[in-house]
């Protein structure tokens, strides 16, 4: 009811006006209108009761009080209710913002996990990337659990709080950090990919890591790890590279984008398998190990000084 008027008024800057109406000011108008109506109703009710009350003198005082009280109570209830409702609405609105990204079926997740291992050789036309966060998030949590498991079986003895925190920090840091880095690069070279698609792509790319690490943490066999690293890690990297290739134009941008992504992705798997806990152990050793000698504090001059003063005292006496 308000929209047409405003759009007619501001025909010169229609875009800005539409933004205004879709923002908070529009809600305010709606709320104001409703409140005005509410107040009118309350006033009408009060007036009606008072009109009836005038017929009998005894009723007048009571009805007046009742009307006033009713209005006050109604106002209070209305205000409290509105506050509650807006608070609840805000909470649920924040969840609702994320809800579309979690709108998946189990079969979709399964097929996307499979597809994350199958590179598609089609680079002339932009490949489809599903913008979804359920799968990536669960894969990151799975990776955290696998890392914890690996650290335990490899006999890494460090403080557990650090262990848990580092596992979570590494996985989330890699996922978010590398996604934003590649997104930034893609933005620089004008590739057609959004942040959400990048998060989803890299998240599903971690499925290969999960499989490789789960197997190789339990079966300690170097040749097996290298084979799986090349095969499974390579396949999941190739899949991401193919998607990025299809969405980028030009030789140098493609080389830059895909080179950095594959380098990061493959070396992250190596890092997680080999040196994760060793680096962590070494770092902790150097930080709080026994090989760091405590700083020696040398007391200088104090004995001499006291001696001297005592001597002087003795001499003077």
């Amino acid at each position, binding site marked *: 009811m308000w929209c047409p008027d405003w759009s007619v008024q501001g025909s010169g800057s229609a875009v800005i006006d539409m933004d205004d109406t879709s923002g908070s000011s529009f809600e305010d108008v709606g709320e104001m209108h409703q409140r005005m109506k509410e107040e009118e109703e309350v006033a009408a009710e009060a007036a009606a009761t008072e009109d009836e009350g005038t017929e009998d003198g005894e009723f007048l005082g009571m009805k007046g009080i009742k009307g006033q009280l009713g209005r006050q109570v109604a106002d209070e209830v209305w205000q409290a209710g509105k506050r509650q409702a807006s608070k609840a609405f805000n909470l649920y609105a924040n969840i609702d913002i994320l809800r579309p990204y*979690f709108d998946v079926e189990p079969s979709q997740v399964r097929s996307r996990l499979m597809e994350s291992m199958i590179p598609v050789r089609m680079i002339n036309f932009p490949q489809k990337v599903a913008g979804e966060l*359920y799968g990536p998030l669960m894969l990151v949590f799975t990776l955290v659990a696998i890392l*914890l498991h690996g650290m335990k079986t490899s006999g890494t*003895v460090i403080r557990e709080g650090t262990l848990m925190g580092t596992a979570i920090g590494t996985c989330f840091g890699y996922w978010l950090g590398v996604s934003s880095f590649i997104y930034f690069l893609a933005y620089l070279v004008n590739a057609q990919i959004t942040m959400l698609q990048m998060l989803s792509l890299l998240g599903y790319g971690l499925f290969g890591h999960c499989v490789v690490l789960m197997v190789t943490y339990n079966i300690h066999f170097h040749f097996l790890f290298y084979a799986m690293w090349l095969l499974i890690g390579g396949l999941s990297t190739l899949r991401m590279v193919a998607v990025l290739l299809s969405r980028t134009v030009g030789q140098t941008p493609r080389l830059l984008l895909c080179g950095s992504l594959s380098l990061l992705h493959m070396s992250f798997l190596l890092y997680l398998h080999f040196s994760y806990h060793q680096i962590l152990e070494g770092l902790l050793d150097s930080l709080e190990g026994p090989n760091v000698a405590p700083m020696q504090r040398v007391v200088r001059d104090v004995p001499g000084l006291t001696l001297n003063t005592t001597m002087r005292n003795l001499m003077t006496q």
Partner: protein
Amino acid sequence: MASPEDASRPFAGFSDVSIPEDIPVEGDISVPVPPSARDDELSTLDEPVKETVLRDLRAVGKKFVHVLYPKRSSVLLRDWDLWGPLLLCVTLALLLQGGAADSNEQGGPQFAEVFVVVWFGSIVITLNSKLLGGTLSFFQSLCVLGYCIMPLTVAMAVCRVVLFAISGKAGFIVRLVVVTASFGWSTFASTAFLSDSQPSNRKALVVYPVFLFYFVIGWMILTFSP
């Protein structure tokens, strides 16, 4: 006086503010709430503290039974509380803590870690189920997940006894069996409560993080050594 059908619908008259003339204004104000229920509500003020505590403990105990024998009932969901989860979480953390305190290498998980893992994990699962379109409220879900740690806490107690009594490979096998059974039990019980609130085609998506959560806790218990 108010007529009998008015007494049965106590607030029906309030919708119509204008009062007809044939109803006199003076009369008794009848309280719609039965007096006995009202007394019960109010009497908690001057009852002994022991009774209050015992009643709450009884409620917690009743929910423990529900977890041990998971059947489709809404008691755990309707009257949620966080006392039981707190109790279980603290017990588990203390049991896991003990080993680390008196050894030099500090191999066991710390109290804070267990605490954070349990609460952070259940919050993540709850948010996930909300995002997938579940109908449970936030605290109901937290309550269910917290109460369903109970089999794992029991397994932890058993593991400590086993570690004390049996050593070597046999002890490890016993612990493995106990932890696996309790892990399955926890997952089964929590899904029995949680999956009703989900759309039927998405149950697997909700169950997976629950499985992961109890798996990590179970792994912590299994690898614990004093």
